[in-house]
């Protein structure tokens, strides 16, 4: 798989071809203009080189209309580049609806991946070919950046905040994972491999390994941390009902509304006082320092899975759960 003198990275995702297309187009456009500029310079420098006959420059100025030309034309080209790049960026940001969820935790200096089925891996990531994969990522310490050169995507992984990124592999094989944001001593060792597998091998891989799914582990934690003492299944509990929460609008006691996304759930657990739900008191204790990053993800998956439960979820409201935050399709399910 690994070519030992590559001049071009492999194209292994649906985005790769599009990024390459823009890149090549830019090479051609800017290459042409640059070569033109150099040729003209050289041509002038030789043709009008100083010599006894050409001691003094000629008293001639090119027409000023040229200025307009080389202001307007590059501007148009540049704006074209912007539009193309922006369009590409939107593709890179918009997660397809049926994406497979994988959870990523970065820390000095390793990548931990966790599948909804509960499989955990370090520095290696198994994904199926031909299926969109959405990564939900957070860091335990400093900023890292998860980079898949062959998929042409990367995103910084921040502490105390979830970020998402997606790709859809188009080619089976074993490809590099790099950490692209400087993160300390062993930054260059924070690397790994992504194994893109065809469907049968992926199913086989998924079947092995895990004891229980992430959301059922999350459910256990929900009990262990005694969340269920307050968050019961009916509105008479001390805390709000969490079923159907994810992706919905929440009204706070100061009148603001927020969308219950990954970061909101995270904040609700770590810093519950920051946003108080309307109608409730600020009684929820903070779990900062008690839940680690991975447990937090499990709780998140669990809370999310409550939303996915068809019986509890009213029809998806398009405004409050935009394409970027579609409720997950949980392959293993909670039950």
């Amino acid at each position, binding site marked *: 798989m690994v070519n030992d003198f590559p001049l071009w990275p492999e194209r292994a995702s649906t985005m790769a071809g599009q990024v390459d297309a823009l890149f090549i187009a830019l090479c051609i456009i800017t290459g042409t203009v640059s070569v033109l500029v150099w040729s003209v310079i050289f041509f002038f420098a030789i043709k009008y080189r100083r010599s006894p006959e050409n001691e003094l420059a000629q008293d001639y100025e090119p027409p000023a209309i040229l200025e307009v030309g080389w202001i307007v034309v590059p501007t148009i080209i540049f704006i074209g580049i912007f539009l193309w790049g922006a369009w590409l960026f939107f593709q890179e940001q918009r997660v397809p609806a049926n994406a497979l969820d994988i959870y990523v935790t970065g820390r000095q200096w390793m990548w931990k991946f966790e599948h909804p089925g509960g499989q955990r891996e370090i520095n290696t990531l198994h994904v199926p070919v031909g299926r969109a994969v959405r990564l939900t990522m957070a860091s335990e310490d400093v900023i890292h950046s998860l980079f898949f050169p062959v998929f042409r995507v990367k995103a910084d992984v921040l502490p105390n905040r979830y970020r998402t990124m997606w790709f859809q592999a188009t080619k089976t094989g074993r490809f590099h994972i790099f950490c692209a944001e400087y993160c300390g001593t062993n930054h260059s060792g924070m690397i790994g491999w992504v194994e893109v597998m065809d469907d049968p091998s992926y199913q086989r891989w998924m079947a092995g390994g895990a004891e229980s799914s992430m959301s059922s582990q999350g459910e256990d934690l929900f009990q262990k941390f005694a969340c269920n003492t307050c968050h019961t299944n009916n509105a008479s509990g001390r805390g709000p009902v969490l079923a159907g929460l994810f992706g919905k609008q929440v009204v706070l006691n*100061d009148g603001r509304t927020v969308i219950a996304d990954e970061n909101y759930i995270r904040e609700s657990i770590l810093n519950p006082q920051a946003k108080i739900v309307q109608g409730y008191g600020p009684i929820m204790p*903070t779990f900062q320092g008690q839940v680690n990053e991975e447990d937090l993800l499990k709780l998140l998956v669990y809370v999310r899975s409550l939303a996915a439960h068809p019986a509890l979820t009213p029809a998806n409201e398009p405004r409050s759960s935009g394409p970027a935050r579609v409720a997950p399709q949980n392959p293993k399910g909670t039950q």
Partner: protein
Amino acid sequence: MGQQHEASTLGMWMFLATEILFFGGILAAYTIYRLLYYGAFRDGAHHQNWRIGAANTAVLIGSSLTMALAVWAAQTSRRNITVIMLILTLLLGGVFLGVKAYEYSQHVHEGLFPGTLFTYVDEENPGYTKGVELFMMFYFTMTGLHALHMVIGAGLLIWMIFRARRGDFGPEYYSPVEVMGLYWHFVDIVWIFLFPLLYLLH
């Protein structure tokens, strides 16, 4: 001399332009956190004694007046008044800094100094504690930088007093006093914004 005069006031204004961005930078950070930690910042402002703040504001405005009068006196060749006004400015500045020091000691005492000395817990809203610490961080940094500017200003004032006594200034040559004044007024303006932001908005 005119050209030199103009050059030095212009130079001072350029310097003040950089100061605007210097304090503006921290103001931007403050604004963002104020919006993100709205409640906590409100609680934080409760720990400020607005009476002391208001009194200090008056002191500083007073010192701006005496500074302006010093420039006026220099322009109109009133040497003794120049010296007196400069000394008054220095004194008022000293009062301000003294009061500030008192406030600081109070805050440290209450465990409000950010970092390891921070022992305060927000009783009403324990979740705000971190935000209050952030607020106090901004409080100490902003007022600290402001006080540092005052200290530098006080140093310059002493030098001006010395020169004024020597009789350096008159209607033809007063730009050092004028430039000094610009600086001092600017420091005053910074406080005019810090006072409501740190003491009053709760």
